């Protein structure tokens, strides 16, 4: 029974928190730019409005791509522990992670591919060259940030000797957080967070002024609403993963969300002030500092074991 509640609950939390984060992002950027900004629930209004608008479709794959992307993101959420602890503590509940014994971190990494792949397929089904350029950039950017990200993940998995995310979180709660035991990996992961989220300075995939929002160029109405939801859930997944890997998860949902908010605010500050870079420079950046830091940390971790 608790299993079913968890399966319903964890995507729902991801949806609500993710959408609110999207609204918060607009508000933060507006304030940094000395504007007032839209209300924090603006994305909710947008999604509801878009659901009611009639748009165009370029065929079955055009729509199914979006469905695949969103479904993949929803399943990813179920594999990520959203706070909770195995040991008894006051104000704590058991681990909120419905699919905790279904393959662990390795499955999370692969499930995170469904989002980009689904959008790429959908965008490819339209004949818009802008969409193809955007997809090409997305693939390159993914390769760029995955190289340091894989090193980071491997360093964490070696440090805690496990491929299970719940176990990694439990070990951190017993001893010290990941940010202290694998500090360089944490720095590297933070440096590539904007690239993983597709925000400035790495928002070149959906650059509106250059390639008409890239893969999203042809989308409108219901499909665009679902893509917005996918974006929100992806945002949630990436930041939740960062909290689980380096900030020790949370003993309950509330502390987990507070930690997520802290990470999110830090990333949005970068988003608010930096301009967009070219894809070549994005690859060079990702393969230089984050990769070097993550590599050094992995070497240290392996040697100290």
């Amino acid at each position, binding site marked *: 029974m608790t299993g079913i509640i968890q399966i319903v609950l964890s995507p729902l939390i991801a949806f609500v928190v993710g959408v609110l984060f999207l609204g918060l992002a607009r508000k933060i950027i507006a304030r940094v730019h000395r504007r007032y900004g839209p209300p924090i629930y603006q994305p909710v209004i947008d999604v509801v409005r878009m659901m009611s608008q009639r748009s165009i479709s370029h065929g079955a794959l055009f729509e199914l791509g979006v469905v695949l992307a969103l479904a993949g993101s929803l399943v990813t959420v179920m594999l990520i522990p959203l706070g909770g602890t195995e040991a008894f503590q006051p104000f704590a509940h058991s681990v909120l992670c419905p699919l905790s014994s279904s393959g662990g971190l390795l499955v999370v990494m692969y499930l995170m591919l469904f989002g980009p792949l689904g959008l790429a397929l959908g965008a490819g089904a339209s004949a818009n060259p802008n969409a193809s350029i955007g997809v090409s950039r997305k693939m390159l950017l993914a390769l760029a940030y995955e190289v340091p990200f894989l090193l980071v993940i491997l360093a964490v998995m070696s440090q805690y000797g496990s491929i299970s995310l719940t176990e990694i979180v439990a070990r951190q709660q017993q001893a010290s957080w990941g940010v202290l035991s694998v500090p360089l990996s944490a720095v590297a992961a933070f440096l590539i967070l904007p690239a993983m989220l597709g925000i400035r300075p790495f928002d070149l995939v959906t650059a509106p002024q250059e390639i008409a929002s890239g893969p999203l160029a042809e989308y409108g*109405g219901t499909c665009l609403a679902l893509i917005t939801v996918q974006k929100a859930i992806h945002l949630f997944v990436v930041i939740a993963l960062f909290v689980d890997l380096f900030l020790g998860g949370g003993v309950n949902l509330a502390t987990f969300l507070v930690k997520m908010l802290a990470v999110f605010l830090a990333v949005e500050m970068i988003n608010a002030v930096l301009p967009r870079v070219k894809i070549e420079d994005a690859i060079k950046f990702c393969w230089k500092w984050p990769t070097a830091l993550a590599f050094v940390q992995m070497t240290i971790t392996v040697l100290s074991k």
Partner: protein
Amino acid sequence: MSPQAILITAFAGAGLVFLAGKVHSHLRDFLAVLSSLALVGLIAWSHGQYGPDNEIVYVPDFLGMELALRLNPLAWFFAIYIAIINAASVVFSLSYMKGKEKLGFYYSMMLLVNAGMLGIVLSGDFLSFYIFWEIMSWSTYLLISYRRGPALHAGMKYIIMSLVGSCAMLVGILSLYAQFGTLQIAELGEAIAGSSSGYVLFILMAMGIAFGVKFAILPLHTWMPDAHSEAVSPFSAVLSGVLVRMGMYGFLLVMYSIVGLKTILNLGAGFFNFHYILSWLGAITIVIPTFIALLQNDAKKLLAWHGIGQGGYMILGMAFGTSLGVAGGIFHTINHGSYIALLFLVVGAVEYRTGGVRDLNRLGGLIQRMPVAFFGCLVGIMGLIGMPLTNGFVSKWFIYKTLITEGHPFLAFMAFVGTWGTILSVYKLLHNMFLGQLPEKYKEVRKAPISMQIPILFFCFVIFLFGVLPGIPLRAIQGIQDTMGFAPLQLTMWGLASGAGALNMLNICFAIVIAFAVVLLLMRLGAKPRRVPQEDSYAAGSSVPAGKYHHSVEFYNPLYQMISPYLKDRVDQFYYWAADKAQGVFELTRRIYTGYAGTYVLYIISFLALLIFLQLAWEIW
């Protein structure tokens, strides 16, 4: 069913098809399909019939040796895998090869390659093994050079490298016979247990060169891209799907059936351990070919480089010698067979309908015209990447988990980077063939014929079946591992059951299906979109010309410019350089033979003079 009956059917089928080709084309096609399907049936029927009843000595006294056949779990597993992929390719050939010349020869060679491979896995001694190995190698050579022209060069490159491997294998076999006086595989296992580690290493090296050439491990891989781009597509499926993996069978046989697990793990000292070095070769075989594949524009060359790269995962899994790793390696072998065969067949179908085009820069938008081929391509690339729900995911998960829990994150990193490089190049394959704008000249392309759709859909089914219920093949693999003395894994029908490191594909499958259904429902709740033609797309007010704006050439240009200087195939260049120099040496040698009797007399006299001088100077005799 005895192994003899399987082999007789295989060879008789090859012969009969050749004869039938002289009589009538329909009879030939019918016989080819019948005999390849009959083999699948025969092998499936012989499942579980292992033991002394199925060991047959078919030549009792060949120069004092027995030539024997036998059936055991390892042999059965590889036999069924060979037979199924070959049967699918023969069915696919029916329309693909229609109207080409020398078809009787083609079909009979396809069946002969099949018979040779079945012979290899059913051999009970190394002499039969060698004979069937050569039958396979030479019929492969004939099939690669089937199309003549540049194919002859590719075939020559293949056969020269293959012969080098065969020579190495022969040296190994002769040495085994000289040492132990027997070539029976079962007896060799006991005999070799007492020999020195230096000798075991020598045997492994000699055999390893032969298997490495077939397996296309770096740096013995250079024949493969050329062979693939010249071979016909159904044969490419067999070549990359199973034939290359005979090297894997060889490695498993020699490393774990003969030499044995304990000896393998203690071979060498510290860092220079045999299985450790083999793992690093595997890791390099993953990374470099995968990124070379990224630069290819020929669909089949791209897949051929991936065929090399994926082999690295099998080596990585197998070399580690843990239950999980070896199971992953063997499982990855058949998984790779299913999706690479599928992808070659899809490329073949596109080639067939577009008049032989497989240049990725000249295709596009075929999804509307060839939906089944598109679906096959999508499933195939998902398998190749190893997305969850496909079989490739489960075997890669096994291999990654082995690498991480055994404490080799650097090897794991190379395996991961290989996978993420794969995503880029296979998406390019899918996008440039099927997505984007449909060029004007392909407006009339029709969908693939039914005899092509059946094998494509069959492989799609297998990929998903083994992806969601990996227990089916893993039980058979468990049987193989029992005979090799590995600790049993805690298998279930849907993956692996062991606490925190468990894998449950059925759960993931249910979660994805339910999430898919929920999202689909959400989409139905929203306003229904209006269907518009593909060309009706947004271009900031100006119109997009139809059929001209397909972004495919230099799809990953920023990355190409960064990585291409580092990714020249220097090994291939080195071999060409060596061949060139060798030719120079041969030319010099040829000059010695002038053809004049006087010169030869001069040689003899000077040789005698040398002998006399040696005797006078040092008094050797």
